[in-house]
């Protein structure tokens, strides 16, 4: 029996899925930045409210709110929130280390976005599990090179 190319493609795709848990990006630089933070772990969707404007007039000052569903007790709390901008010259935006002193796993800040792109947020819980959320932002005036 002979494998058809399409079937081989499907198999390769299935193996790739098993080998590397899905990230919300294909970009090698962004993937490397995320892997540097979370290693080979995989992140589940959901449990994060990510607020970003759909259209940012000024890419130099884009308001960002990350709110993770978490009781913030000593037993279960968010230990880190990581923010990545997939099409900035350097993808890392900020890494927040949290403790149970944080009543909510919530951080608001303002970020730079160079152009229209996807923002990826990862949250790590005290038990080591990861959550992720993404948002696509259109940028009228880029915020990195101006």
């Amino acid at each position, binding site marked *: 029996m002979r494998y058809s190319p399409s079937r081989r493609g499907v198999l390769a795709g299935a193996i790739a899925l098993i080998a590397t848990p899905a990230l919300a990006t294909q970009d090698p630089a962004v993937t490397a930045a995320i892997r540097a933070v979370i290693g080979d772990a995989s992140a589940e969707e959901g449990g994060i409210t990510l607020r970003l404007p759909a259209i940012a007039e000024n890419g130099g000052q*884009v308001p960002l709110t990350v709110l993770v569903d978490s009781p913030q007790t000593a037993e279960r709390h968010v230990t880190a929130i990581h923010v990545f901008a997939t099409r900035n*010259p350097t993808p890392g935006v900020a890494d927040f280390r949290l*403790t149970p*002193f*944080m*009543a909510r796993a919530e951080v608001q*800040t303002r970020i*730079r976005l160079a152009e229209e792109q996807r923002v990826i947020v990862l949250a790590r819980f005290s038990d080591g599990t990861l959550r992720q959320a993404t948002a696509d932002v259109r940028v009228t005036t880029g915020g*990195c090179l101006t």
Partner: protein
Amino acid sequence: MTTLTAPRVRIPRQVRAGEAFEIRTLMEHPMETGLRQDAGRTVPRDILTRLLVRVNGDVALDAALHNGTAANPFHVFWLRIERSSDVEFTWFDEAGRQARHSARVTTA
């Protein structure tokens, strides 16, 4: 290199023990990425790399700031304390300089 100015911090003086309260911080700083051109020359990189918030000396929030953090870093977050506490904020730049702000928060 930018002179570090006094941070602006909004924090309540009195809170209820165990209840969430909001803190807003703003630090004036250009956060130069080192990528920007001005009159044909690259403006040197100059960024705040860290905001550390401590409650009675214990770390509450430790933020590593990179290129993608906007100029004049602005952060809002929620703390919870069980007893009257000293909350200390420290910003660090790449030259090793620091800007500090301290606040006493009493519990009712």
